C-alpha cells in the first residue's frame, strides 16, 4: 500500500520549473531516500505533499487524501521536519515542542523527555539563541515525540554533529521497527545508504532513478581493475571510461550492460585477475549529476 503517491506533478514558480512530471511513491513501512542536490525540487515536492503549495498539474495523495484540500486531516498523521527550521524567537525550545505536539493533537511526554536527553538538548533557552544544530534538534524532537504514522524529514541532519547524527539514525531505525513510514530527503549520501530501503533520485524537478540501492547499482558503471598476461598498451574500447593503462594492468569504468562486451575484448589479453567494485551511492549520484550539479532554483 502506498502512503505517498505523486503522479506527473508539475510545479512552476513563474518562469522557473521546480517540478516536471514528478513521480514518487512511498510504501507503508519503508524508509524512502529522496536525494538530489540543493535546488533540485525536494522541498517543493515535500511542500506539495504537505498541502502548503498547490501543484499545477498531476495528482498527489497522502494516506489516499489529496493533500491541499485535506491538509489538516493529513497532518494529524504526519510529522514534518522542515529543511530550514524557523522557530518563534520568543518561545523556548520546550514550549515549541509542546505547542507543535498539541496542535497535532497530542504527543508522548515521556518520549519528549527521553529524546531531550538523547539529543543532549537544553529546552529552556529562547529559540532565538539556538544554533542551527539546536534548531534542528527542536524540530526533530517535536517530530519524533509525536505518534505520527508518516515522517517527512527534509534534510534533517544538516547542522547536527556526528554523534547526534548517530542518535538520529537510531531514532529512525526505531521508527522503522514500529512500522512507521519515512520520507527522508537528503544530500548526505552515506546517511541514505545506511538507512533507506529505497531511493528516489531527483534532478531538475524530475525523478531520474528509483529503486533499492542494489537495483540502482546495476544501472550504472562498475569500476574494474584487471591484470592480464599480454601487453595492454594499445588497448582501447568505446565501452570504457576513465581508462588508465599500465603495461599489464588496466583501470576503467564500464556500464553494467556493456560488461560482457568489454570482457570479451579483454579476454584476448588473457585475464589473470579481475576486481569489480560496485558504485557507491555517491558515484551513482555523480553519474546523474556529474555534468551539472546545481539544477534550477527551488
Amino acid at each position, binding site marked *: 500500500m502506498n502512503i505517498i503517491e505523486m503522479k506527473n506533478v508539475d510545479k512552476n514558480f513563474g518562469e522557473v520549473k521546480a517540478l516536471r512530471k514528478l513521480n514518487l511513491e512511498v510504501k507503508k513501512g519503508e524508509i524512502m531516500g529522496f536525494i538530489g542536490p540543493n535546488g533540485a525540487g525536494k522541498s517543493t515536492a515535500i*511542500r506539495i505533499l*504537505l*498541502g*502548503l*503549495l*498547490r501543484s499545477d498539474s498531476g495528482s498527489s495523495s497522502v494516506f489516499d487524501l489529496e493533500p491541499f484540500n485535506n*491538509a*489538516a*486531516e493529513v*497532518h*494529524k498523521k*504526519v510529522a*514534518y521536519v*522542515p529543511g*530550514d527550521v*524557523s*522557530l*518563534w*524567537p*520568543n*518561545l*523556548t525550545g*520546550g*514550549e*515549541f515542542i*509542546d*505547542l*507543535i505536539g*498539541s*496542535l*497535532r*493533537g497530542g504527543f508522548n511526554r515521556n518520549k519528549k523527555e527521553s529524546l531531550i536527553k538523547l539529543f543532549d538538548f537544553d*529546552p*529552556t*533557552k*529562547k529559540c*532565538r*539563541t539556538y544554533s542551527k544544530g539546536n534548531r534542528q534538534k527542536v524540530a526533530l524532537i517535536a517530530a519524533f515525540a509525536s505518534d505520527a504514522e508518516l515522517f517527512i524529514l527534509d534534510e534533517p541532519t544538516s547542522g547536527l554533529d556526528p554523534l547526534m547524527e548517530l542518535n538520529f539514525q537510531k531514532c529512525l531505525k526505531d521508527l522503522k521497527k514500529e512500522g512507521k513510514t519515512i520520507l527522508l530527503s537528503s544530500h548526505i549520501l552515506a546517511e541514505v545508504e545506511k538507512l533507506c530501503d529505497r531511493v528516489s533520485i531527483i534532478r531538475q524537478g524530475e525523478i531520474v532513478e528509483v529503486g533499492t540501492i542494489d537495483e540502482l547499482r546495476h544501472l550504472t558503471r562498475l569500476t574494474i581493475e584487471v591484470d592480464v598476461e599480454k601487453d595492454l598498451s594499445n588497448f582501447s574500447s568505446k565501452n570504457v571510461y576513465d581508462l588508465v593503462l599500465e603495461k599489464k594492468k588496466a583501470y576503467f569504468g564500464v556500464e553494467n550492460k556493456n560488461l560482457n562486451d568489454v570482457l570479451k575484448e579483454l579476454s584476448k589479453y588473457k585475464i589473470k585477475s579481475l576486481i569489480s567494485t560496485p558504485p557507491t551511492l555517491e558515484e551513482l549520484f555523480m553519474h546523474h549529476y556529474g555534468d551539472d550539479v546545481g539544477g534550477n532554483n527551488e
Partner: protein
Amino acid sequence: MNKFKGTLILTKSNLKRDAFRLSIWIISLTLISFALIAAYSTMMSDDTLKEMIIMRATNPAIRMLDSPSPGYSLGGFYTSRGSVLITILIIAMTIQTIIKHTRDNEESGVSELISSTMVGRYAPLLSAVIISVLTNIFVVIITTVALYSHDLDLLYSFYTGISFGLMGLFMTGVMAIAVQISQTTSGASKFGWLTTLFFFTISAIGNLLGKFDPNTFKVESHNITFLSPFGWYQQMYVFHENNMYLIIPFIISFIVLLIIGFKLINKRDIGSGLIPAKKGRKDAKKSLLSPLGLFRNLGKKSYTTWFITIVLFGLLFGFVSDEFEEGLSSIEGLEYIFGSVNSTEYFLALIISIVIIPLLIFYVQSLLRIRKEEVDNTIENILASGVTRRKLLITKIVESTLNLYIILLFLVIGIYVGGLTKVDIGISVILQSAFMNSIPILLVGSIVILAFGILPKYVTLITYGVTIISVGLGPVFGPMFNLGENILKISPFTHIPTPLDDFNIMPFIIMSILIVVMTFFGFKGFENRNLDLN
C-alpha cells in the same frame, strides 16, 4: 588594531547597498517639503492663514500635535504646522538607517563576515552614524531650498532646515545606543519609537499647557517642553525669535549619546545585545497550546505597549479637558470658526478621532502578524501540524479584534475617569462615539485580510497605504490639506457622525457589508493559494 579601521570602505559599500532606500527617503522628503510650503503659501493671500493659526492654536488636540506657533508669517506657519510631520519622517528615516547598518547586518550574519575582515570594532556603528548624518544634511539642504524657493528669507530657511536636521542628529545618537542595548532589529526600532513618543509627549504637554496670544499669534509653551528635543527645536521659534542657541543642547546630547553608544560596543558580543536572554520554561503553559494561545503569546509585548500608551492617552485627554473648554470659551471670535456648538461635545469628538488613530495602527499591525509568520516561514510549523488555514486566519482575526475592543473599552474608561469631575459627559456618549469609530478600523482591517489572501506580497504596502490614506484624509488631518470634501470622503472615518451630527445608519450598513465581503474573499484567497515560503 585601530577600532575605527575600515570605516571609510564600509561606509562606501553601505552607501552603495543602501542607495535605493536612501534616495526614496530623500525624494519623498523633498516632495513633501515642497508640497507643504506650496499649499501654505496659497493661504497667505487672504485671512485664511490667520484663521488657521487661531483654529490650530485653540484646538487642544491639534495644539498638542503641532509645533507651537511662533507668530503670524508663512515661515512661522510652516514650522508650526509642517515640522512635526517632517521631523517624524526624519526620525523614521534615521531609525531605519542606523538599524539597517548595524543590527540588521548582525542578524543576517553580515557583521560576522565584516568583523572577520580587517574592519575595526567601531567601524560599523561609525559608518552608520556617518550615513545618517549625511542624510540629515540633505534634509537641511532640502528644507532650505524648499522655503527659499517660496521667497522666504534665506537665513531663516536655513535655520528651519537646521532645526529639522538636529532632530535627526539627536535620533542618530539615541539609535547608536538602542542598537547596542536591544538584541533584535524590532527591539531596537521599538526603543527608538518609544523614546520618540516619550519626548514628543513631553513637548506636547508643554505646548498644551502653554498660552496662546491672539494678538501676536504666538503660542508660549510651558517650560516643561525644554526637557524634550522636540521642545528644543520648537522653541527656536524660527522666523520670529530665532533662538539658535538651542543648537547647543542638541550638539551636547548627540556627543554624549554617541560616546555612550560606542562605549557599550565593548560590553557586548557581536550578534547579542546588552540585555541577556533569560532562561525560559522547559514545558509550555497550557494557555500556549493552541493557535490562539500562540498568537496571544506572540502579540503580548506589542499589545501591552499599545494598551498602556493608548489608555494613558485617554486619561491625559480626559484630564486636560476642562482647561480647553475654558481656553476655548475665553477666545473671542471662536463662534465664527466653530459656529454655535457645544464645545464639550466638539472636544469629545476631536479626542475620539485622535485616539482612534493609534488603535487603527495597533489593529492593522496585529493582523499583519500573520503575514510575518508566513515570511518568516514559521507559519509552516502551524500549518503542517493539523491546523487548517481557515482556523488559523479566524483565530488571528478574533484575537486582534478582541484586543482592539478591550483597548477601546479601557480607553473610554480612561477618558471618562480622567475627565470625571470636570466635563459633563456621560460615559455612554463616549462609548458610543468610540464604538462608531471602531467600524472604520474593522473596515481597514478587512482590506488587510483581503490583501493577505489575494496579494500577499503587497499586503504590507497596501496596509500602510490604506492606513495612511484613511488617517490622512480623516477628520483630524484631512482638513489640513485643503483638498475638498469629496476627496476626504475616501477615508471611512470621514463618514462617522460626530456627536454634533445627526445619526445616520447608512455608512455603518455599507461598511459592514464591505467588511463581510472583503473578509470572505480574503479567506477564499488564503485557502487556495500557495504559501509564500522561502
